[in-house]
């Protein structure tokens, strides 16, 4: 890659800029790229990284509940961004916490802000009730002051600090998705990344995973599958436990940092921004349609919260809830089919 330049040297002597984001992974990548002189919004990172997805696996439990995700698996955004834009990300995992701490300090000494994978539970700067064991949270560290690390957590509106001890624990937490101290930072950023080429490629890839995977757990079929399961929850789990399952889906859609409506709004923002870049007006209409589906997802959350509040106790409430989810599936299916035609 001849046109590529090593950007990290330019970081020295430059003030680090924090950028507020909806999602930790796209936010961390956008922050790293922007601080290395590549102006790319979080929505673009999310879209080009094909972050949008849907999956529901009843038998795979996370903290006691079936896995329901509105996005692709952790680190797929980073991988796709590198592949599609020619960014070279240097990443490293460590055998021991000591090695990991030393490597991080060395990078910070050189003035290189780095992305880290962490477990949210040990990050004490978050409010207590927002902390759960989840090993896939991405943050950016940009410096160290005494014993505290200076942290730009993408999902917070301002920078924070974290003690070395707590950060160490968060980086080397074990179990599912264990971070093993992962650090990453862009080593090479091409001078003229080909967005016009990358955007249609990324959109087609998202359309493919939402429409074409021949397994009923994923994509639009996954959404319909969730609707079907949801109707069975009251009989399967009893009303109280069924309500917990509803609550868990809503948390995956809204609470974990999705920009609203399970990443549907951030993807609509990406389509809107892309319309101008690849000069494709049709994307604007489709973006608006996705916003409308997103609003419907939000209504699902409002109605689900009624069930959680126990204001709505009948099993028929689950039928209504499932009906909204099916509407969302229909709306999204139409959107992806249209996207397939226009890009």
């Amino acid at each position, binding site marked *: 890659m001849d046109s590529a330049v090593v950007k990290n040297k330019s970081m020295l002597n430059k003030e680090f800029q924090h950028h507020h984001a909806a999602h930790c992974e796209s936010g961390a990548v956008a922050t790293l790229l922007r601080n290395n002189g590549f102006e790319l919004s979080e929505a673009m990172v999310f879209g080009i990284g094909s972050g949008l997805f849907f999956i529901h696996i009843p038998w795979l439990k996370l903290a006691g509940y079936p896995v329901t995700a509105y996005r692709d698996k952790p680190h797929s955004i980073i991988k796709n961004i590198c592949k599609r834009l020619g960014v070279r990300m240097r990443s490293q995992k460590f055998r021991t916490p000591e090695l990991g701490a030393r490597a991080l300090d060395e990078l910070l000494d050189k003035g290189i802000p780095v992305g880290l994978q962490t477990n949210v539970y040990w990050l004490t700067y978050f409010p207590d009730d927002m902390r759960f064991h989840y090993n896939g949270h991405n943050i950016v560290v940009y410096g160290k002051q005494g014993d505290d690390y200076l942290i730009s957590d993408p999902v917070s509106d301002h920078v924070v600090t974290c003690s070395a001890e707590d950060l160490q624990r968060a980086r080397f937490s074990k179990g599912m998705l264990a971070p093993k101290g992962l650090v990453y930072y862009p080593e090479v950023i091409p001078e003229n990344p080909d967005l016009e080429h990358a955007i249609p490629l990324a959109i087609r890839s998202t359309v493919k995973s939402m429409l074409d995977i021949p397994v009923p757990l994923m994509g639009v079929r996954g959404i319909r599958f969730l609707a079907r399961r949801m109707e069975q929850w009251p009989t399967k789990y009893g009303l109280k436990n069924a309500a917990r399952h509803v609550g868990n889906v809503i948390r995956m859609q809204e609470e974990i940092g999705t920009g609203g409506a399970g990443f549907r709004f951030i993807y609509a923002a990406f389509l809107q921004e892309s319309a101008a870049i690849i000069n494709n007006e049709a994307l604007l209409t489709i973006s608006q349609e996705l916003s409308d589906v997103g609003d419907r997802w939000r209504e699902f959350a*409002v109605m689900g*919260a009624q069930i*959680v509040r126990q204001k709505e106790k009948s099993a028929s409430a689950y039928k209504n809830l499932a009906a909204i989810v099916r509407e969302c599936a229909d709306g999204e299916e139409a959107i992806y089919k249209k996207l397939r035609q226009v890009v």
Partner: protein
Amino acid sequence: MKKKDVPQEHDMYGDHLRACYAQDEKGNYEIVTSAGWDVESVVNTQANNEIRSEAEQSRLAVIAGLSSPLEFHMKRRQMTPSMLAANAGIWLWRVKRHLKPAAFNKLNNKVLACYAEALVMTVAELLQVPDEVVKDIAYRG
């Protein structure tokens, strides 16, 4: 979502604000900060209350001699047996045994120290449960 519809209902993120994607009057998307949404607060409270009540049940079970203190401390740190096994470096089947008082009471200091480290507490703390209901289920540093 329209900018004016971005919920500002609770200060549920402490001194943090959340980023939402919303449209301005012209339909252009931008990041709008949110102080919290009622819906989110409801499901978050549900999840936290559940963890608290499980920890409390476990605490009472320890006092009744049915569970070991390890079970309480595991729940209080929001861990599952497999998570605790991974973090303490002890086989899952052993962890499960140690959740009962009979096996737990026979543990040597070396194994106790592994658990204490994984749960971020001293061995002395690990060996007992508080006398009162514990509301605090987050690690405080």
